[in-house]
């Protein structure tokens, strides 16, 4: 395994860095012990895991990927994954035989804690089947002849599947006719099979066939399957249809409904807890009351002066039609006004579950009253691109469909000395305009700070403006197409900032700015600065 070890060589410091984060000494000891016996394949496995994308649904189809993985390669990956799993189990002190994928996930989150906000960017270790997208094996032989008879349709798997399904439909209809002829036909309802499951969605079908489908294809296929399932089928056909159905949990009653509790006076009450962002709330809902709500000892009208928060509190009761029938006492801490309201709402809904029927609990769940809001505040990201160092600000504006950036830079004329006077070598200072007249040498005193302002009165220094434009198209004024009003405005703005009187755009995307009389030089923004396209 020479090649993999080479690629892993660079990764070793990275590995050690990560190993350093593992707190358990035992783990480290095992790690070091295992490292020596560890096959480089595992390292490469985990290294590759860092770089390969997580499984996504949309772009899995083989046609979109540039790299192709051979069958041997995938097999090797699977072997390495299994070995790596065993090593991981050893590391964690678990039994390698009963190490499931959930255990793997847990181990990886423990060994590589990541604070990344996007869950899909965190380290994963999964079976190569899930990571590497499915590829189609080579579909033609050495002589160039395709294997499958439907290859030239372009979507061979899809059409072969349709062919198969239609064959089954015909078969079933034939059988149905036979039964009818014999008089043994009975109306058997098939709806039992279809409840609790759903058809594959288009993406899942695409994934299954490793082919891209269009919406019409998908619809056609589903119609055919529905037709098949409507006919009386035997076991083989049912199994065929079952391949394209996924179960759906109709009512997910994951959370328990606590029973009612009774206090000293015999009043029924129930507690619930809720969270939203950083606010935590606990609510006690009493069975009989007049609709009073007390929060941290204060009436809810005083605690939430904003109507929006009170509407949030009203939502569960209004939904269940129990406005004014319950009394609530709650405590809340943390968060802001709106998140406290959300937390109390969740706590109240959960407490109310004890008072209502199961159907109503399901209604509430569907309304979203019983779900904790997963939204949290996004952590601050670091600056990736450094700040621009001082100088004139870069102005960005949009015009003519392109993004323009205008930057003023003071560039001394090429090939000339920066001062017209004799400058000392190494001194990059410019002469002060006010000190000298044009053409006469100025005394340049070293050590004195000169500054030269290229401007209207000094035409020898170039007011180079860097104008960059990205995207969009530019047309000539004289040709077809017109500048949009926003484009005009932006060019006018640029012209004003450049002290130019007029401008014109020529074919090829060159913008010429013409100065006023006696003002600075004319500027030309050439095609090398712009990336232009012919406007469509």
């Amino acid at each position, binding site marked *: 395994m020479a090649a993999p070890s080479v690629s892993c060589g660079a990764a070793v410091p990275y590995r050690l860095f990560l190993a350093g984060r593992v707190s358990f000494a035992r783990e480290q000891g095992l790690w070091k012990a295992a490292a020596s016996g560890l096959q480089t394949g595992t390292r490469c496995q985990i290294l590759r895991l860092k770089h390969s994308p997580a499984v996504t649904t949309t772009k899995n189809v083989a046609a979109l990927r540039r790299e192709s993985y051979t069958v041997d390669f995938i097999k090797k990956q699977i072997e390495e994954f299994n070995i790596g799993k065993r090593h991981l189990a050893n590391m964690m002190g678990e039994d390698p035989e009963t190490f499931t994928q959930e255990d793997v996930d847990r181990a990886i989150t423990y060994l590589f804690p990541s604070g990344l906000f996007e869950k899909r960017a965190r380290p994963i270790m999964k079976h190569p089947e899930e990571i590497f997208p499915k590829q189609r094996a080579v579909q033609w032989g050495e002589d160039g002849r395709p294997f499958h008879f439907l290859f030239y349709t372009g979507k061979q798997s899809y059409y072969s599947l349709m062919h198969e399904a239609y064959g089954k439909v015909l078969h079933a209809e034939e059988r149905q006719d036979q039964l009818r002829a014999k008089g043994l036909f009975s109306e058997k309802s098939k709806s039992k099979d279809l409840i609790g499951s759903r058809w594959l969605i288009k993406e899942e079908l695409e994934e299954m066939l490793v082919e891209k489908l269009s919406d019409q294809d998908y619809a056609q296929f589903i119609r055919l399957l529905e037709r098949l399932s409507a006919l009386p089928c035997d076991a083989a056909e049912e199994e065929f249809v079952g391949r394209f159905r996924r179960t759906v949990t109709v009512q997910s009653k994951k959370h328990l409904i606590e029973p009612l509790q009774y206090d000293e006076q015999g009043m029924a009450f129930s507690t619930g807890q809720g969270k939203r962002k950083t606010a935590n709330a606990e609510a006690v809902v009493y069975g009989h009351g007049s609709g009073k709500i007390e929060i941290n000892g204060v*009436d809810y009208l005083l605690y939430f002066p904003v109507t929006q928060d*009170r*509407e949030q509190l*009203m939502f569960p*009761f*209004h939904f269940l*039609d129990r*406005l*004014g029938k319950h009394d609530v006492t709650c405590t809340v801490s943390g968060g802001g006004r709106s998140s406290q309201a959300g937390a109390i709402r969740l706590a109240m809904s959960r407490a109310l579950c004890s008072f209502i029927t199961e159907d109503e609990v399901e209604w509430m769940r569907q309304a979203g009253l019983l779900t904790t809001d997963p939204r949290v505040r996004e952590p601050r990201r670091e600056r990736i691109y450094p700040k621009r160092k001082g100088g004139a600000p870069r102005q960005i504006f949009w015009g003519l469909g392109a993004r323009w950036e205008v930057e003023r830079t003071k560039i001394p004329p090429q090939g000339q000395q920066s001062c017209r006077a004799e400058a000392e070598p190494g001194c990059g200072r410019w002469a002060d305009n006010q000190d000298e007249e044009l053409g006469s040498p100025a005394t340049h005193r070293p050590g004195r700070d000169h500054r030269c302002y290229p401007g209207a009165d000094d035409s020898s220094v170039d007011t180079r403006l860097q104008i960059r434009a990205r995207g969009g198209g530019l047309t000539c004024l004289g040709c077809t197409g017109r500048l949009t009003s926003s484009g005009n405005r932006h060019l006018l703005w640029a012209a004003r900032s450049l002290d130019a009187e007029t401008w014109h755009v020529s074919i090829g995307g060159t913008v010429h700015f013409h100065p006023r009389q006696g003002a600075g030089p004319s500027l030309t923004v050439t095609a090398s600065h712009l990336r232009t396209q012919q406007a469509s």
Partner: protein
Amino acid sequence: MLKGMTRLVSRVHKLDPGRFSHLGTQAPQCPVAHLDNQVPTERTRAISRTLENDPAKHGEQHVGQHYNISIQELKTVFPHGLPPRFVMQVKTFNEACLMVRKPALELLHYLKNTNFAHPAVRYVLYGEKGTGKTLSLCHIIHFCAKQDWLILHIPDAHLWVKNCRDLLQSTYNKQRFDQPLEASIWLKNFKTANERFLSQIKVQDKYVWNKRESTEKGSPLAEVVEQGIMRVRNATDAVGIVLKELKRQSSLGVFRLLVAVDGVNALWGRTTLKREDKSPITPEELALIYNLRKMVKNDWQGGAIVLTVSQTGSLFKPRKAYLPQELLGKEGFDTLDPFIPILVSNYNPKEFEGCIQYYLENNWLQHEKAHTEEGKKELLFLSNRNPGLLERLCAYL
């Protein structure tokens, strides 16, 4: 939003057919109840309105009902002093209807039984924000006006301790400050409210305004008021004189005086006014406040003092404070002690119903669910029966 949510149980069959016809007759801006569909509207009128327009005759049976004040009376009795939102409502509905409520009734009862030989009793209306203290005060003022008392109504004492552009050094006392603008506005309104008294009451001292003008002893109070209105520089002093004279003369029994101050906690709080050298001014240094404090002391007879403490408009007081002790501070509380506190709270269910009915009658609630029971429950929950909040909520419907 919430009202558009799919409900668990279909509500259609529960809607009253009578209500639909109520919906159907949407006559624009017709304050009088609809003449067609007599029976239900008669019933609703009975709940929300009463024909008894004299506050003196209001009793327990009128609680929750609205009585009408004619527009002329409104102009004379309340040139100032009504809350701005109420003024807008009067303009919209083209009528002024006040609700009869328990605190006001209690106070009326006390006022009817005052013994004018005893020193003036102080009543303090207090309550949370938006519960109706100012309107209860206006109810009392209307009663007293009908009973022919002299009304000394300061609409909002908070206005006198903040946002004053021109502060002059007082001519009378160098330590104090004058507020000509506020004083002159108040004098104008005072004149409108109490025209008939001003000519009857005679001044008992001679007051010299400046080298050329003076008011002789025995001249009517109207002259002092005129002087204050015309010469804005002397307005504050005119106010002081008016207060002094009224206090002196009400003890004689010529007339009965009602001192009504809204937001009396401003007299003892802090001000946001500053001198030229940016040092803060205490309320005592404002001449208006100083004179008013003298008025609120119970060392005179022949009338009553009705006060309101409110957090809205107060300076440097926490939002949740509503008790007199919190809002008046130690100094104010000691000065006002003893007083009779009257709590003004949120609507009780009957009053709430009455208010909703009133809005429905005036076609103010246009939402289709407003007539239904669920709509009422929603409004009840959202406003928690707070009158101010209910009014603001209904403004959106």
